[in-house]
């Protein structure tokens, strides 16, 4: 009846997952109870769960990403402390079986359910605003994408409480991940969670390619698009090009595990190394899917806080697209040790080194953007400058790893671990925190507290280096990755130092939480009244904070690069806003519960397939199909926002801008 599922799936004997699960379940029940007691359900359902507004979906992606970031960070703390506590005779506090699940969950969660949702959160929130349009190309599909990602995250977290997670690393290499060597449900949890969220990501990619290429406001030609939108386009193109590879590869492994196929097995002619090639043909572009939008975030921040247009905008576009293409030609450097031969390894070593050229162009452009500018050392700017320092070092260790003979010595060592954390934390995570600080007022109407933000940056920056410098050194001394127990006594000081770094990072994370709480308490003092708190340059700053659900009362007509900067300068010169436009009624898409329905059935299907409950999987698929048909049958697709409502919102915006203009004129009067 219930396939492989019975009471033994609940890990009663293991205190760590049991206590964590109980706490998580209590927290969830508490939140649900609070929501029910306060009567917030109708509001949540109407305004958030069924919302097809790209800004709301962006915020929900962000929330999901932050929650999973905390979960992944908890795994990281356990790994660092276990290694420091299991040297020589000591065994630490984690069993090998459990430790293997933790490092697998850490990587899976951080890449698929923390970094990806957070990057897509920014793409969702910003791209339509920067393009001067009212929504993405397919608003309802966007909601489906989000809920499918959430469904994948849910499955990973269920594995904590029911059954187990994979012990095979964040990419389940066969033959270890085959049914013969991993007979449990861990790898199945991985496969279905990643597969379901991967489909969501693919839909996001399709949506954003179409949005950027087909939905720009009048006058927004390609070379007038803000840099973040360019990088979002490049990232979406990569998603469309490589996520299907992930889908196909995991499907092959699934067939091996469920039906005894022989794609990657040791026997009957299977080819395990084919898995490595396929998975990295997705996996290497994946890191650029994450880091390109991060580069876009930094570009916007450097230009805004230097008070200058981005230096070398066109070379930045070219470098982005160069990286986008070359990203798909370097995958083999993840397994130089496969033994493909000197010629193949050399070719991939060269392509890997060449991709650093595109990144180098970007680094110089950012530095020259600051050069000669009036740099404001705000919190986003601190993260960005910390990024340049950190990322350049991470990039250089990467070039070192790109040299095949050197790679043979450092392959799968802690040096590699330090390198990719160096680029992903220093590149992607720093960008996410910088962007959070930068665009928070646009989403919520008030800025974040400056002092706590600076404290968070310094703790994170120093903590990062104290954590990972020792790992670089340990790697060069020969320590391999994923060790549950360390035999060599001499490594103790460095492992302990690394734990000190983690402690500093924890303080940084606490600062972030305090910053959020303090900012909410002081929101009236931090209120952004004009909608342009940082003296911004692109169109999102032309809207009030928070932006109305239709974004723009009248679609802007772009007449040059840096669309909003031009409008603003004209207003300052003439001391008045452009004449009031004629307001017209706006058509907006209606909300739809199809996203959350689809995700519900996807979660049930995934869970049923993991536990081999075939009837339930079939039932859920039929339910999903019925949901689609009902959705396709709907009569009403759009609703009309009356012209008076549009006028009311926009007149309030104009009044705020006029007041700001008057304040500026007055300030100049007293200065001169």
């Amino acid at each position: 009846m219930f396939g492989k599922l019975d009471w033994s799936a609940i890990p009663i004997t293991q205190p760590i997952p049991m206590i964590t699960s109980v706490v998580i379940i209590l927290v969830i029940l508490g939140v649900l109870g609070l929501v029910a007691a306060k009567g917030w359900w109708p509001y949540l359902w109407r305004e958030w769960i069924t919302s097809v507004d790209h800004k709301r979906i962006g915020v929900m992606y962000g929330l999901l990403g932050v929650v999973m970031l905390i979960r992944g960070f908890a795994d990281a703390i356990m790994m660092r402390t276990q290694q420091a506590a299991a040297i020589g005779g000591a065994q630490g506090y984690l069993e090998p079986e459990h430790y293997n699940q933790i490092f697998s969950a850490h990587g899976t969660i951080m890449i698929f359910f923390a970094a990806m949702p957070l990057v897509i959160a920014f793409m969702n929130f910003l791209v339509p605003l920067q393009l001067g349009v009212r929504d993405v190309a397919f608003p309802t599909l966007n909601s489906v994408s989000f809920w499918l990602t959430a469904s994948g995250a849910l499955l990973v977290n269920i594995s904590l409480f029911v059954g187990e997670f994979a012990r095979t690393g964040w990419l389940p290499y066969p033959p270890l991940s085959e049914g013969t060597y991993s007979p449990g449900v861990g790898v199945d949890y991985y496969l279905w969670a990643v597969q379901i969220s991967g489909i969501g990501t693919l839909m996001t990619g399709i949506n954003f390619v179409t949005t950027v290429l087909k939905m720009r406001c009048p006058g927004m030609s390609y070379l007038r698009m803000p840099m973040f939108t360019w990088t979002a386009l490049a990232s979406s193109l990569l998603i469309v090009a490589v996520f299907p590879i992930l889908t196909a590869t995991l499907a092959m492994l699934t067939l091996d595990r469920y039906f005894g196929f022989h794609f990657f097995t040791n026997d009957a002619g299977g080819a395990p190394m084919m898995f490595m090639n396929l998975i990295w043909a997705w996996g290497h572009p994946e890191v650029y899917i994450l880091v390109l939008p991060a580069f876009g975030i930094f570009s916007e921040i450097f230009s805004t806080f230097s008070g200058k247009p981005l230096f070398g905008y066109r070379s930045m576009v070219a470098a982005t697209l160069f990286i986008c293409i070359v990203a798909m030609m370097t995958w083999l450097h993840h397994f130089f040790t496969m033994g493909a031969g000197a010629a193949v390894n050399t070719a991939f070593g060269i392509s890997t080194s060449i991709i650093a050229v595109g990144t180098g162009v970007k680094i110089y452009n950012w530095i020259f953007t600051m050069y000669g500018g009036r740099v404001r050392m705000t919190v986003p700017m601190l993260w960005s400058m910390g990024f340049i320092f950190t990322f350049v070092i991470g990039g250089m260790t990467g070039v070192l790893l790109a040299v095949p003979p050197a790679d043979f010595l450092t392959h799968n060592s802690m040096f590699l671990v330090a390198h990719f954390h160096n680029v992903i934390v220093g590149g992607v995570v720093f960008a996410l925190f910088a962007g959070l600080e930068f665009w928070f007022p646009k989403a919520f109407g008030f800025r974040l507290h400056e002092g706590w933000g600076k404290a968070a940056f310094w703790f994170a920056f120093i903590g990062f280096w104290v954590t990972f410098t020792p790992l670089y050194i340990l790697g060069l001394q020969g320590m391999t990755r994923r060790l549950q127990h360390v035999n060599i006594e001499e490594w103790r000081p460095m492992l302990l130092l690394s734990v000190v770094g983690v402690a500093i990072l924890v303080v940084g994370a606490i600062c972030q939480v305090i910053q959020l709480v303090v900012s909410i308490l002081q929101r009236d003092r931090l209120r952004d009244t004009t909608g342009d708190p940082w003296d911004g340059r692109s169109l999102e700053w032309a809207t009030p904070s928070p932006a109305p659900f239709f974004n723009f009362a009248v679609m802007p007509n772009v007449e040059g690069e840096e669309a909003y900067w031009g409008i603003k300068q004209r207003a300052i010169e003439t001391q008045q806003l452009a004449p009031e436009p004629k307001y017209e009624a706006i058509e907006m898409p209606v909300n739809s519960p199809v996203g959350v329905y689809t995700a519900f059935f996807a979660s049930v299907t995934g869970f049923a397939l993991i536990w081999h409950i075939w009837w339930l999987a079939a039932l859920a698929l039929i339910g999903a199909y019925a949901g689609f048909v009902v959705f396709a049958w709907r009569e009403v697709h759009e609703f009309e926002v009356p012209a008076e409502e549009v006028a009311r919102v926009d007149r309030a915006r104009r009044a705020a801008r006029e007041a700001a203009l008057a304040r500026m004129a007055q300030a100049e009067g007293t200065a001169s």
Partner: protein
Amino acid sequence: MTDVPFPISREAVLRRREDPSLIGHGAHGPRDIVPGAGHGETGPASKRVIVGYGFWIFLLSDIVMFSCFFAAYAVLQGATAGGPSARDIVDLPRVGIETGALLLSSFTCGLSFAATNVRNKLWTQVFLALTALLGLVFVGLELQEFIELAARGATPQRSAFLSAFYTLVGCHGLHVSIGGLWLATMMAQLQVKGFRHEIVHRLICFNLFWHALDIVWVGVFSMVYLMGAAA
């Protein structure tokens, strides 16, 4: 929606926008701006262009997925583990009928859209039904092939080659089957709702999907069956 001036009458613009042979053309000259075509400086594209374009991107991603199964087949083609090879399992007459049915179904699918273009519901439905029937013939023959092979012991569990064979061919067959389910749903929708905008947009997408499956089948037929029979 946009405040771009309309150089020509609204009806002319709409006619132009909805004419499939003109979509994507003619927006490059300054004299010939087509609001809604979505390139360059003219503002967002019309819903029809956006839907079709997005679906094209999806099809590209689907073809990338097929390319992985093709690649796996190419790698594992010789890995027969002492079992049957491609030459032993190819039955060209049957696969010839399959191919004929599928290509013919693409033709009837095209005819259905010709009927859609002149908003003729009866003929649209007739040709869609023919398309479904031919699709059914194709899937039926493929199933028959699989069952016969399995009865001879050539199951996907036998060797890596057979795993790759069943997965590549079966993935295409699964696409055709899901396409058939979609087709049936579309016929019901068309019958109840008539040629509303969104129904026509979906019919465009269905046409694109069905033709793309044909293109993939040409690849499968050449690489698996023709090259297999010649090997």
